[in-house]
């Protein structure tokens, strides 16, 4: 909402500082996003005094003038406007000034006479449509004075961020009400300069249909339109608005159109009541009816767009066709024009939800729809309507054709709400006196009706606050106006929550600590991707094809980030991510989601050091295998790691695959080292506590064995057998030391050296005992695995 400081000043009858206004509004719940000088774009223009105007020697319609722009130099200016006279003051664009149209003013020759600048019309300054002549400045300001200070008296525009519940702040009266309460001063409507003295009785009440000035007014859709006021004004003369009105509209960022349209816009920005004026001569019937749109109907709206009307949309129609989308925009066919002599003025209360649906259906948001959606004052409509009539008659002349009418099919009063001071204390945590509570209720405009014996306060809510429907709404108003800063911030006793942390949180934290400890860097990528696996769910309304699906795995995003690093010539990349993945499997009716952890590593395994005799080794599949193994233990302790075609997978006892690890395919430059990665679904589980085992007190005996293992024989089956059989012989651990393949070995065999560590918990083992154990293991290996022990 654009707020003019001067307009608010006119309500409060006092000068205000815009910075202080902003500070106060912020603390009242309406922060100010910006304070802008009004007319800043005209700052290059100055008051020009025409000291002489004589006919152009070579052109009938042009004149050659001498302009004093206060610089001390008089300028020769050729001008085509009929209304230029010596002694007049007009906006003057000096050489080098950029016009709102984008044109730069340069010295040029017009039919043989030099022109050194330009005298401007209102339209040339983008101030209105007036183009019949120069904008006449009736001012005492000296030549050279800047135009914004003459036109706008240095008004300022406050861009107020109004929350959706506070429609009343979309009019200057609402802003003035808040500030008046804050400053502790009264406020009332500004006077209309030169207001015409007219007799304006209250509009006559009707049900859902009424005649006025020969026009039939009707509400056919009573859920969509709760109140409809109308008047016929004949004998109006459409023309430009006076300077004061144009200035107000300019300050809020509106263009002046003509006196009647400007009057409706003025009242909208003053009282938050949109109104619409129709050219009475264009109405068929003549009638104005609020009804639901019918299939196939169309309208060309004021912005010149031809639009289909979705069926059911709340519309204004005459006897034959749609003439407006209710609460959104009027139609071009019934628009007020220079030829108009009679108007029908309409002022309504439309259902906020219907207006919202309508403007979404036609995809057109306007000042009016913005206000109706947030709720206008159903009861204040009468005052706004009468003010607009006065304004139109004052500006455009004319007279009411018959008394104005007020269709109010289901009259009602603003709600009465009961407030319990005990509830105020319960919610706010402080005891406010009744007098204090009442003071704030009155400041918001409510009427405190009575204080019955049951201790409650009966409050009549003002019509401009449709957002207030229950006791808690009143409590918020009380504390808002009392001041949030006056509520103490003292820490009081509390009961801690009884819930434990979500186990998935702890699991993710443990994985993150482990991977950062390994030197990996965490990334957070967007969960939306351009394409994904078959199970990646699709979004119905993505903004971009790049983000049209939900990821079903993290690895592809990590690979993309590795590639982005390569593009920056970074070869050493170590990334991981913990995030949600989505999956829609064939049988499911809705997509599922799971937390995953994934990593991708490439480049040097550790930073190069000056003592290194060769290049630092690269991350390889075995690094990935070990990292994956640890990840599985952290994320899915029940899963077994199995060998797959291209790497390893983690499989749960039931057979479900929960993770995989392999060399990653990527779009790699020739110099790029290989990328390895893994991904695992995180089972939400709490950490299992380790069990202490007593430290051994007897020495270990170590034996290294070289085993002849088949080249296609999985070594884990060999080790598994040794572990199992060794258990009886005090075997503590088995580890692979190295693998050797060479021609001197038997065909189809490789040599795998394993280290066996034997240790007893209760005595020192003798060599003989260990030799015997090794002998037994050797026999088992030969018989059951066809593995020969080469050496010991």
């Amino acid at each position, binding site marked *: 909402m654009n707020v003019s400081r001067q307009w608010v000043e006119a309500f409060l009858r006092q000068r205000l500082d815009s910075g202080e206004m*902003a500070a106060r509004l912020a603390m009242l*719940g309406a922060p100010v996003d910006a304070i802008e000088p009004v007319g800043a774009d005209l700052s290059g223009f100055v008051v020009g005094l025409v000291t002489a105007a004589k006919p152009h020697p070579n052109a009938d319609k042009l004149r050659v003038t001498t302009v004093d722009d206060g610089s001390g130099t008089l300028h020769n200016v050729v001008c085509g406007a009929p209304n230029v006279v010596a002694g007049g003051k007009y906006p003057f664009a000096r050489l080098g000034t950029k016009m709102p149209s984008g044109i730069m003013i340069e010295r040029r020759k017009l039919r043989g006479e030099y022109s050194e600048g330009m005298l401007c019309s209102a339209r040339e300054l983008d101030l209105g449509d007036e183009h019949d002549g120069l904008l006449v400045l009736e001012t005492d300001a000296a030549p050279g004075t800047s135009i914004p200070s003459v036109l706008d008296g240095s008004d300022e525009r406050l861009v107020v961020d109004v929350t959706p519940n506070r429609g009343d702040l979309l009019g200057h009266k609402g802003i003035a009400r808040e500030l008046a309460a804050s400053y502790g001063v009264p406020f009332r409507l500004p006077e209309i300069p030169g207001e015409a003295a007219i007799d304006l009785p209250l509009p006559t009440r009707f049900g859902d249909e009424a005649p006025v000035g020969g026009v039939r007014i009707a509400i056919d859709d009573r859920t969509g339109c709760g109140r409809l006021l109308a008047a016929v004004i004949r004998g109006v003369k459409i023309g430009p608005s006076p300077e004061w009105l144009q200035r107000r509209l300019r300050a809020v960022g509106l263009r002046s159109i003509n006196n009647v349209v400007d009057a409706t816009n003025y009242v909208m920005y003053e009282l938050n009541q949109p109104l619409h004026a129709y050219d009475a001569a264009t109405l068929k019937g003549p009638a104005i009816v609020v009804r639901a749109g019918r299939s196939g109907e169309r309208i060309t709206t004021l912005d010149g767009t031809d639009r289909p009307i979705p069926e059911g949309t709340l519309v204004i129609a005459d006897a034959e066709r749609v003439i407006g989308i209710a609460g959104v925009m009027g139609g071009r066919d019934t628009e007020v024009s220079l030829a108009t002599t009679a108007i029908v003025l309409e002022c309504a209360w439309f259902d906020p939800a219907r207006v919202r649906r309508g403007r979404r259906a036609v995809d057109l948001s306007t000042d009016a729809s913005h206000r109706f959606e947030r709720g206008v004052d159903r009861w204040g409509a009468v005052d706004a309507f009468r003010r607009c009539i006065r304004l139109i008659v004052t500006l455009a002349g004319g007279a009411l054709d018959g008394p104005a009418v007020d269709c109010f099919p289901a009259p009602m009063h603003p709600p009465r709400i009961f407030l319990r001071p005990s509830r105020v204390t319960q919610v706010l945590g402080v005891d406010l006196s009744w007098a204090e509570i009442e003071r704030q209720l009155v400041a918001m405009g409510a009427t405190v009706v009575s204080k019955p014996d049951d201790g409650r306060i009966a409050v009549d809510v003002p019509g401009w606050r449709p957002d207030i429907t229950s006791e808690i709404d009143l409590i918020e108003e009380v504390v808002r106006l009392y001041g949030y800063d006056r509520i103490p911030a003292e820490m009081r006793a509390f*009961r801690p929550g009884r819930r434990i942390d979500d186990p998935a949180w702890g699991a993710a934290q443990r994985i993150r600590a482990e991977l*950062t400890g390994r*030197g990996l860097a965490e990334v957070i990528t967007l969960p939306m991707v351009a394409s994904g696996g078959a199970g990646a769910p*699709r979004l*119905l309304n993505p903004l971009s094809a790049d983000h049209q699906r939900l990821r079903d795995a993290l690895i592809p995003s990590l690979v993309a980030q590795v590639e982005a690093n390569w593009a920056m010539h970074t070869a050493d990349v170590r990334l991981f991510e913990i995030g949600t993945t989505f999956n829609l499997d064939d049988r499911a009716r809705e997509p599922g989601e799971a937390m995953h952890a994934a990593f991708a590593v490439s480049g040097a395994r550790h930073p190069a050091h000056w003592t290194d005799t060769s290049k630092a080794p690269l991350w390889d599949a075995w690094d990935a295998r070990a990292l994956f193994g640890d990840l599985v233990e952290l994320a899915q302790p029940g899963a077994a790691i199995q060998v797959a075609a291209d790497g390893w997978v983690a499989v749960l006892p039931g057979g479900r695959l929960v993770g995989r690890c392999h060399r990653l395919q990527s779009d790699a430059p020739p110099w790029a080292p290989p990328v390895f990665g893994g991904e695992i679904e995180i089972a939400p589980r709490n950490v299992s506590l380790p069990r202490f085992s007593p430290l051994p007190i007897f020495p270990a005996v170590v034996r290294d064995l070289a085993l002849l293992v088949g080249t296609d024989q999985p070594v884990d089956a060999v080790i598994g057998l040794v572990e199992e059989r060794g258990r009886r012989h005090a075997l503590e651990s088995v580890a692979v030391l190295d693998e050797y393949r060479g021609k001197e070995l038997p065909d189809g065999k490789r040599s795998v050296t394993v280290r066996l560590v034997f240790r007893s918990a209760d005595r020192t083992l003798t060599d003989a005992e260990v030799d015997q154990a090794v002998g037994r293991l050797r026999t088992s290996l030969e018989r059951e695995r066809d593995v020969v022990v080469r050496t010991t």
Partner: protein
Amino acid sequence: MDALRQRLAAVATLDAAALEAEEVAVLGRKQGELTRQLKEVASLPLEEKRVRGAELNILKTDFEAAFSARRRSLAETAAAAAGRDTDLTMPGRRAWSGSRHPVTIVIDDIVAIFREIGFSVALGPEIENDERNFTALNFPPDHPALDMHDTLFLEPVSGAEGSERLLMRTHTSPVQIRVMREGPPPFRVVIPGVAYRNDPFDASHAPAFSQIEGLAVDEGISFVDLKATLTHFAERFLGGSVKVRFRPSFFPFTEPSAEMDVSCAICGGKGCGACKGTGWMEILGCGMVHERVLQNCGIDPERFTGFAFGMGPQRMAMVRYGIPDIRLLYGGDMRFLAQFGAVRK
């Protein structure tokens, strides 16, 4: 054995020749003293054998280590004497340092502060329905408050027509609903998570972003508790000298609602470009849980009251670390990420 222990202690003082002789004298296969004693163990009674054998074996390992260490030390001294001095200003050998994401660091810091005062972590799904994302949170249908929640919907599953419309949660608030429906108060939870809006991906918007919410519901919780808790949080998160203010605001699911501002981190409250000259920065939205929300979760609002709050870790990370473009937070540039490691060089 005590004699052996003394000889062990003396190893560190031996010169090269003495070291060689002593090694033979102690560990030598034939005349080594320790070797001899180990052989004798076999003849001891069983109980004594076990104890003594273990002790001697440990001593043997210790001697081996001591001889090796002394040899290394003598070699280094010899190298130094030969003029090949070690330059201790040469860099040490490093390992890669990992890093948490800056947004994770912010979330972890926030969670840590709230856990100290009795909050625990709650999580919930990112795919939600209208009821928990909007209706239960007191968003009226066709209300302009929905404009702030430009929602991403999931394409309906073929064959599942007629089932409820699914959406990507527009805030983490549906987890509040889930928590409150799971059990009786008191509740004290913080809810970190990802929320989705149909926003363009530009310097200040992302279609998916982190959010962290909090909820406290119990008997006797008031606006005073809200202010105290969140002021405490701001002072812990930003330092004790930070100034805090609460302004009225509007959210459908809280009433009274507030925005919490903190004194601008850039100018300290004097007013600058970052705070639009106000000296304040908006850091979180909060309010007393709306009584209709409590009712929607089966909680009696006459008995229980509560407060809730929510903030954006991405924006907080951008302010905290001076990151100008939100898209950096979604990238994986190692040069960016390394800046947030515990070890940064």
